[in-house]
């Protein structure tokens, strides 16, 4: 097997929950050795999610945790203990990257901030992810994806047209996902620069800012035109029909996007409604957009008679963009993802076989990424403290007993 792109890069991963760990999941997929540094005193929230595991207190039964930890290693350090901080520094000395998403200031209080760490590891790259950034008056505030959705303006723009109350956007941790992915990009850029010049640096990644960067249109509409936009739902600014339509089956829906007049003609032919094509209300994109409510009623009359997969096939064959609005069950059965080997079976001790995603691209003949099992809590203590730091078995035993390695 050929080597993975980031083989030889070692990451000390102090992050928790999603925005941090997911970025390091990218690094692990790309071949880096990512060592999660965790503690029983403040175990990752995701490890504590019970799910089917019931009340098992070993912290090793939560699939949601493994989702962002496949291929990583885990060691335990109780950083409230000064000796643990010393050990952490020892690990960092052997690393290329440190990642953390504590509240700004926390790493400094531990003596593990970038300025301190660069003294022991001059070419270190450090990624600090936080809700509002490392600087500024509100830097220390606590944040989660859902609160950032509110703070960044994202919630004020995502909702159903005509409704006044914004939805809470709790079920999708989008801000976490895009921040994590942005973090992976930042690390690759910094690694690229370090390879060229030998220089490391500190990266300050704010969830709030990364989220705004993904949503420039309403911000520019405000800064350029003073306009404050409302909810548009599934609608487009110009194209119609453009929406999610009810299909046959319980809570089954299909997304359809007709982008121009040619596609509209094809849509009418494919659905067997040539009378729509000659209706002056729907004559061009502009007219359709102004009559989209009437149009949506007609489209629904047709989609309701079919399951989403049928609608998708009929429309795509005619050259019109459509796809089922997939729930998790549809999603795991997705023929395209299956055909491209997007999923991989993983044997995850102690919870057994399950499914994981590999990287979202195909890179020619090279291996695209790895999917090894995720680590149990402290599974690699011996590897880290003995093999890397060279502590004796007795020392390790004592540190465990003293709850330094804990």
């Amino acid at each position: 097997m050929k080597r993975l792109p980031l083989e030889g890069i070692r990451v000390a991963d102090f992050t928790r929950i999603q925005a941090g760990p997911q970025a390091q999941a990218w690094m692990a997929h790309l071949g880096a050795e990512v060592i999660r540094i965790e503690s029983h005193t403040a175990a990752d929230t995701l490890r504590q999610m019970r799910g089917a595991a019931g009340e098992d207190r070993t912290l090793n039964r939560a699939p949601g945790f493994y989702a962002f930890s496949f291929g990583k290693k885990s060691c335990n350090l109780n950083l409230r203990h000064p000796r643990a901080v010393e050990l952490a520094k020892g690990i960092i000395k052997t690393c290329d990257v440190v990642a953390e998403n504590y509240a700004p200031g926390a790493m400094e209080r531990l003596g593990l901030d970038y300025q301190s760490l660069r003294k022991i590891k001059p070419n270190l790259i450090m990624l600090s992810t936080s809700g509002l950034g490392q600087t500024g008056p509100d830097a220390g505030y606590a944040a989660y994806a859902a609160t950032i959705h509110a703070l960044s303006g994202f919630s004020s723009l995502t909702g159903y047209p005509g409704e006044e109350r914004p939805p809470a956007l709790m079920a999708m941790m989008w801000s976490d996902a895009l921040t994590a992915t942005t973090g992976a990009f930042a690390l690759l850029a910094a690694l690229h620069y370090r390879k060229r010049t030998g220089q490391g640096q500190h990266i300050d990644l704010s969830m709030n800012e990364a989220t705004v960067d993904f949503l420039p249109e309403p911000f520019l509409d405000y800064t350029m035109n003073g306009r404050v936009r409302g909810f548009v739902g599934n609608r487009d600014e110009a194209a119609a029909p453009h929406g999610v339509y009810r299909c046959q089956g319980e809570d089954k829906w299909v997304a359809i996007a007709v982008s121009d007049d040619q596609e509209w003609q094809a849509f009418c032919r494919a659905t067997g409604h040539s009378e729509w094509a000659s209706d002056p209300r729907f004559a061009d994109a502009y007219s359709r957009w102004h009559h989209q409510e009437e149009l949506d009623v007609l489209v629904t009359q047709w989609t309701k008679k079919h399951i989403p997969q049928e609608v998708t096939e009929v429309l795509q064959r005619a050259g019109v963009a459509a796809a089922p609005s997939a729930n998790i069950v549809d999603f795991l059965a997705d023929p395209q993802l299956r055909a491209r080997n997007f999923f991989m079976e993983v044997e995850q001790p102690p919870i057994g076989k399950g499914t994981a995603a590999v990287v979202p691209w195909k890179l020619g003949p090279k291996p695209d990424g790895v999917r090894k099992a995720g680590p149990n809590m402290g599974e690699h203590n011996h590897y880290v403290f003995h093999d890397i730091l060279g502590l004796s078995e007795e020392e390790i035993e004592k540190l465990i007993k003293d709850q330094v390695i804990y």
Partner: protein
Amino acid sequence: MAKGALSGLTVLEYAQGIPGPYCARMLGSLGAEVIKVEDPAGGDMARTWGPFPDHNPHPDQSGLFIYLNLNKKGISLSFKTATGRRLFKELAQQVDFLIESTPPSFLPRRGLGYTALRKLNPQLIMTSITPFGQTGPYRDWKADDLVSTHIGGLGYAFSGPVTDPEAVPPLKVGGHQADFATAVTATIDTLAALNERRLSGQGSHVDFGAMEALAAVRKGELAAYSFEGTVTSRTQTILRRTTGLLKCRDGFVQMHGTTEREWQGLVAAMARPELLQDERFKNENLRSENWGVLKPIIEEWTAPRTKHEAARTMQAAHLAFAPINTPPEVLASEQLAARGFFVEVNQPGLGRLKLPGAPFKLSATPWQAPLPAPTLGQHNQEILCGRLGLPKGELPGLRAAGVI
């Protein structure tokens, strides 16, 4: 400030290239308001033609486009969309002229032919400029300046007389003469239709074919053929006069003809009285026949002089001599400067440009300093919101839907 002769009238233009836009520009320079409609995808093809400042092509910086479209307001409308066609109809209801240069079936197929538009606006004067007119077997043929030049007969004899017709093909005149001649003729027809409207109160469709306009330019040869059966040959001397280019120190002068009086003046100006006695040059026919001998004799006089010196001296002696000017020399011409021919336009993005101005002067309603040519869709808001009453907030939607 005096009003233009056509002020108060509005022209809608859906034309590109040279003939239609130049026709509309002439109406505009007489005071009419011109609204130019372009396709949102790229606009008028003249925007892609040079010259460009510093050779750097830019759709809003084509010198030719700017020249042809001074004084106009520019909007963009896609005729591919029903809304674009509807907005065009609404505009057509508000105007006096429509100048268009689409193929004959283009507008009727989109419900925008003269028959349809007349119902909306009976007073409309619609001038359709096509290479071959709206009817006849060639109506759907394509042509450009080159093809028009030759099919109109203008090209065949242009480089003549020639000694070896095999080696020298018929020649196109410099620039886009056929297109400009077409435009000027179409403008005349359009003004005639305006006069007709003043008398009858009715609009009309001016069906204008470039081929006919250009054929009219060759009317001398047409007469010669139809009355005498003479086919003008490219090898024979068409003009039985002494005409030609004479070498000077810095270029050429064009000399034109020598009547008896001009011949005497020429000889006097050259101080060569002995030529008056020369049997070979006794009369105009002989001078023409012996032009090969005479030309070097005159060049003995012109060669040491500059073309301007030669022209000035001969013009003083009442001979039609003129220097062959390069464009910079035309721009520097004291005559044109004295008449204020070149005008300056402040073109956005380019600054002040010097452009040819009024081709003629009207004493009561002077030609007015032009406004710059529009960028693509520059006046969408002014026209669509101001004239047609669309709310401003609709414009981005129209753009995104490809209507404007």
